[in-house]
């Protein structure tokens, strides 16, 4: 397993690295990659729900960012990267729709949905709370996957990535009002979805 490097850079350094990368300095761009690859991959995974697809989307996003770095006119580099990776995720989701592989809602022999599917269970022998937490994360991810793509990107940007409304509007390329509307609907639907996983929710988070 390769060593994953995590780098944090200041805002001033970020601007200098971007200018250097625009001039063709590949090392400067790779430092930016190291600084943002976790965020980009996390966003991609929350968007597509699969590791392999998230990996492909992340690689495609960084390659596209490097090739179109001259189109970056300033502002939030994080929002600009999220916009690129979001578009890459849309492409990945469309490709998956054309060639479906694993159904997200497996059914048993009787034709009924299996809520706790086998792929949702961690095969490793873990303590019970850890298993419960992982199952909760799978459940939330499952609810996110059921959201329309536009709503999903809004809630992932704001709630998962922690962007404010302005950055989210920049990343989505939509007005702030649109982000507000999408975010309200995106938060409403997972609430109904998570009611089906009430036993997985902590006691204080169980919805009525």
């Amino acid at each position: 397993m390769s060593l994953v490097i995590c780098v944090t850079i200041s805002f001033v350094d970020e601007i200098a690295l971007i200018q250097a990368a625009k001039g063709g300095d590949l090392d400067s761009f790779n430092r930016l990659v190291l600084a943002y690859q976790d965020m980009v991959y996390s966003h991609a995974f929350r968007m597509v729900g699969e590791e392999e697809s998230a990996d492909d989307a992340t690689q495609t996003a960084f390659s596209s960012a490097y090739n179109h770095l001259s189109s970056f006119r300033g502002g939030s580099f994080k929002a600009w990267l999220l916009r690129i990776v979001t578009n890459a995720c849309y492409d990945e989701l469309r490709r998956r729709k054309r060639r479906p592989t694993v159904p997200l809602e497996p059914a048993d022999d009787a034709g009924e949905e299996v809520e706790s599917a086998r792929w949702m269970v961690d095969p490793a022998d873990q303590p019970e709370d850890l298993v419960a937490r992982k199952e909760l994360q799978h459940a939330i991810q499952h609810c996110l996957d059921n959201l329309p793509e536009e709503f999903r990107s809004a809630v992932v940007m704001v709630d998962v990535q922690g962007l404010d409304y302005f950055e989210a509007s920049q990343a989505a390329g939509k007005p702030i009002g649109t982000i507000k509307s999408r975010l309200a609907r995106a938060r409403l639907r997972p609430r109904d979805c998570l009611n089906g996983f009430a036993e997985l929710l902590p006691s204080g988070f169980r919805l009525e």
Partner: protein
Amino acid sequence: MKNQMTSRDYELISAYLDDQLGSKERARFEDRLNIDPVLRRELHEIGKTRLLLRGMPKLRAPRNYYIKPESQAQPVVRRPAWRFAPAYGIVSAIATILLVIVIFGDKLLVSPTQVALAPAPERSLETTTIQQQAQSKTAASPAPTEEAPLAMMSAPVIEETTAPSAELSIGETGIPTPTTVYLYAYPPTPTTESIYVQGTGSANLTCEEYLDSGAYPTESYVNNCPTPTYTPYRYLESIQPSATPTPTGTSTPTITSTLTENLPNLPPASTETQTATPSPSPTPTDTPSPTPSLTPYPTETPTPLSDIEATHAASAPFGLGVASQDQSAISPTPKQAQVTAPPVTSPDVSFMRYLLLAVEISLAVIAVAAGVTAIILRMRAGR
């Protein structure tokens, strides 16, 4: 109390949780929360959902996503051709505007060209000179000379240094003749002869009335009436451009009338014969031709015009024409003061037509090519 939640209420709840409401809006929303238990319950549940979503762990990248030098599919800098896509669009727009200007300018240039071909200053100078000569000759000539009317100023004058015809040479002897002939200087001689009007069979009109009526000339009119001197027929006025500078159409009848008055001893027929010499265009006759040539383009100007101009330039080095000529050496025929041909500086219209056509085609090709290029570049740039 409202039991039904609207999408606006959920937007307010979401914005309230993210602290995105203004102070007034936030106070109003909190007032509603105090009195609306349904809104309070929805706020609580959506708040818990929001905390669950925000509690999702940040994932670590499974590997480093370095960009390797050999994996660069495209250079960082955008291809220059794409950057010039807006320039192609601008070039296409400018070419289109120029094309429209050239096309409409060509259409506007057609009618004024006939007037503009004859430079007014030269005519004025020559006319003034001729007037001066006429005044100087007044003592020797019994013929009345009048000041040229304004209409004369725009009438072209032909000067010819070639030998006069035999008739005039003969008639010249012993007769002091005027040296200046003005166009449209004298009204037509009224005639009381009645003419037979075709069609009616009974109406009798004088030549002047018939002329004023603007009707197409009938055979009886042609045979009986003299040549009108001041204007062509009315029906020609509607189609003939004004102030045509060609020496053929409008000038010929004027000369006839003037000569008749200024040279009473000369037979009119002999004077008419001489007016036809400088121009190969429709020969002016004693009777008005029902179908005179109205083509005003100088392309039909005969080659003798250049000869005339050359002679004119040689004899008048300062462009004064008749003023510098030796009047004694000039035959006292009306030719020396005849209508002047358009100057040789008039452009070759056929050449200009081809030039305009070439410019139009070039502009059209540039406009289309630049426009298509701009569209293709924008499509390839993915904009």
